[in-house]
């Protein structure tokens, strides 16, 4: 069996890491997977240790040549309406899936415009909540089934047993994501500001870039920050080191924080759960589903900075609560989100479409 995954951009975020894990899992099941994307935004290098075939192409004729030349059984378009026209021209022997991952409503406007390839067999999304969101958004193709296959977590994130605690003199609270309105980084800064006003044993580390590069976009944010600066900023963490970042948060007695207002499932939250690093998130439905209303992670009321700080303080200071949450989260990851478990779901789905 051979699958081609298509996406608009090969970035360093969610979709690329999902495809990476997926490739590893499917390969173990004897399913070949290739990855085609239109633009590389630095994501290509995260595949450097794998023998996956990557195609960076924009020209439709070239893409068609790849598709016909490789006789794929399945083509999965992940939020890539740019190629739906081309996919429409393919004979029905090619089985087409459409994956909806983007939490950005404007980027999934194609659902509202009913712009899906005509032969689409099914839609795949990573969570039940997200399935409901897109069920309400699509204006046509109501007969196309929607399946939920979660994002997998790579094995390197999984922590087995306890580790020797490093002597950290502060607790790190980590935030990872694109610095935009959806990820709501400014709320993260306000939380850091509020937290710093009450305790000096906590430091925030923000990881991410602004959507459009260039210019000193960070500097104005610093001028807005009130009180003594208690945060570090890293534009990125190399892909191969991300698991260590969650390890740092865990070992220092800190936590992972998401202020996001929209997610399909959240790879970062999942990775944190797998790393036994406690998770604190906003109360959006996707997180409620993932964190089981607080059993696998703490949830605060989005927009309420005071509530966020209280929630973080509890998770930093209450060892019992911390252990209970991380244990539940870890168990859930093992049960549902390992590469092996998720790949079996994919295999099952693909076989059902054959």
């Amino acid at each position, binding site marked *: 069996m051979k699958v081609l995954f298509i996406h608009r951009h090969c970035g360093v975020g969610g979709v690329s890491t999902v495809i990476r894990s997926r490739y590893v899992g499917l390969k173990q099941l004897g399913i070949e997977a290739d990855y085609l994307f239109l633009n590389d935004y630095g994501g290509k290098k995260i595949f450097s240790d794998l023998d996956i075939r990557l195609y960076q192409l924009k020209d439709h004729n070239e893409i068609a040549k790849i598709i016909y030349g490789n006789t794929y059984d399945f083509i999965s378009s992940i939020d890539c309406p740019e190629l739906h026209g081309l996919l429409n021209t393919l004979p029905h022997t090619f089985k087409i899936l459409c994956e909806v991952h983007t939490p950005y409503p404007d980027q999934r406007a194609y659902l509202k415009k009913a712009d899906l390839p005509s032969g689409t067999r099914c839609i795949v999304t990573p969570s039940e909540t997200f399935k409901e969101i897109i069920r309400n958004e699509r204006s046509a193709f109501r007969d196309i089934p929607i399946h939920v296959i979660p994002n997998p977590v790579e094995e*390197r994130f999984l922590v087995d047993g306890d*580790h020797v605690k*490093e*002597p*950290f003199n502060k607790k*790190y609270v980590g935030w990872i994501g694109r610095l935009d309105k959806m990820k709501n980084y400014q709320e993260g800064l306000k939380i850091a500001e509020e937290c710093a006003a009450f305790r*000096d044993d906590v430091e925030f*580390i923000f990881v991410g870039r602004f959507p459009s590069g260039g*210019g*000193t976009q*960070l*500097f*104005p944010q*610093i*001028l807005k*920050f009130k009180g*003594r*600066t*208690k*945060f*570090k*900023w*890293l*534009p*990125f*963490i*190399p892909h191969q*080191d991300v*698991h*260590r*970042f969650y*390890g*740092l948060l865990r*070992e*220092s007695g800190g936590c992972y924080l998401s202020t996001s207002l929209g997610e399909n499932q959240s790879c970062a939250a999942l990775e944190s759960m797998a790393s036994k690093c406690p998770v604190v998130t906003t109360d959006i439905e996707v997180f409620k589903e993932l964190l089981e209303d607080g059993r696998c992670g703490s949830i605060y009321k989005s927009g309420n900075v005071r509530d966020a700080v209280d929630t973080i303080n509890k998770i930093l200071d209450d060892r019992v609560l911390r252990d209970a949450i991380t244990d539940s989260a870890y168990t859930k990851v093992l049960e549902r989100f390992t590469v092996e478990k998720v790949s079996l779901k994919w295999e099952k789905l693909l076989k059902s479409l054959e």
Partner: protein
Amino acid sequence: MADLKKGDLQRRVTELEKKVETLKGELAEKERLLTSMYTSKTWKLGQLYGRLFGMESFWREKISSFAKKIFGIRPRNKWNTIISSPVRATDRHYQTLLEFISHITLGKGIFVMIARPKIVEGIGFRAEELNYRVVGLANEFSKEGVRILYVFTEQKEGVSLDHIERVSENILQMSIQLFFKTFEFFFERINSFSTNKVLFIHRLHPCVVEIVCCANAYNWTTVYDILDNWEEFSKAGWLTEWYSRDLEEFVVSNADIKIAVSYFLQRKFNYSGNVHIVHNGYYPDSLNVPVKNLKQGEVTAGYFGSLEKYRFDWDLLLSIAERHKDWLFYLIGRMPRNIRLRENIISLGTLHPAELYAYAQNWDVALLPFKVNNLTISCDSLKVYEYLSFRLPVVARGVGEHVRNYPYVYIAETERDFEKYITIAASTRIEEDKITDFLRTSDWSSRAKEILTIVQSGKPNYKEYIFESPLHT
């Protein structure tokens, strides 16, 4: 012939008169246009907008957000002016950087040093530049085989911002504006070299924020070298164009290593963790300069450096000079306005640094008559080291507390003390052994070694954990 000439001239005069009339008409028309423009609503709005430039206030924010909402515009402020730059990175710039990177000696390392002054164009350093901390250190590091990308923030007329210049074999120089366009390329290309990679921030600049964060992400060692109490300078009305406390705190919070020149600055930033001390130093230049003879007093004292009122204690000097009319005081530096010198205070104006020793040889004692405030006591005046290297005893007030431990330096608390110490210092004989011992460990070469030891002492544990921990591997 003469009549003809006269006729020609008259015609010419008439023509010119007509032209004047025409121009007057045009002028009147333009004035009318200008008047109507000045009275127009657009102009008045423009004036209002113009007044918002550089205004950092609640109202500026309010008005600018309103303007942005309505017109999609935002008044520029001082930061925008500093940051925005027409400098563009070209293929040639990238090629030069690649060529520079390709010659890194493994094991020696590469340092990026962000500082204010541009090193004078041409190959190599000039001796007078080597007394500046950053230039002195860059010179010493480069002698050790370290490759240095020297980034200057100085922006003044005639300083080219879009050139990369070779200063010496190991030192390349470029503006912060150009570096800001190329730093990520630079860090990425150098990433595969497992060598000492250190970013030194000797001078703050808005662009430094992104540069220090990026350097951290590429696992460089980042060092903030706290040269002065910039906040106090800013309060005194200096450096207001680029200083912001938020900016400095962010850099302090994100740099791996903090080095201060004085204990005052160490205490100021100690909240962020350990702040190391590396004092200033001097460049042991040749002292074989013929003396330029000056008139001598019963005691001859001198000072060179900034004479600005925010630092230099004019009241102290004038008062002592009043009481000791037979003492002579020489001042080298630019005189501030509205200072009336007494007869026994002689201004030599500004001199080339290479000439200082020629004049200083006439002095019995060197002075540092500073006001006592947070600005002065947090500094580590370079002049102390220069005076001592000239074998001059020093009488000082308003200097860092560490200077108390230096040989032949008399620290006065009061004006009377200052006066008393001048007398004592003037009759002090400098013992060469004693001063040599001190100077041997106070030159830039020693300071560079101290800094290298600190830099090699390790990264903060958050970084070691993320980038170097064997966990999970």
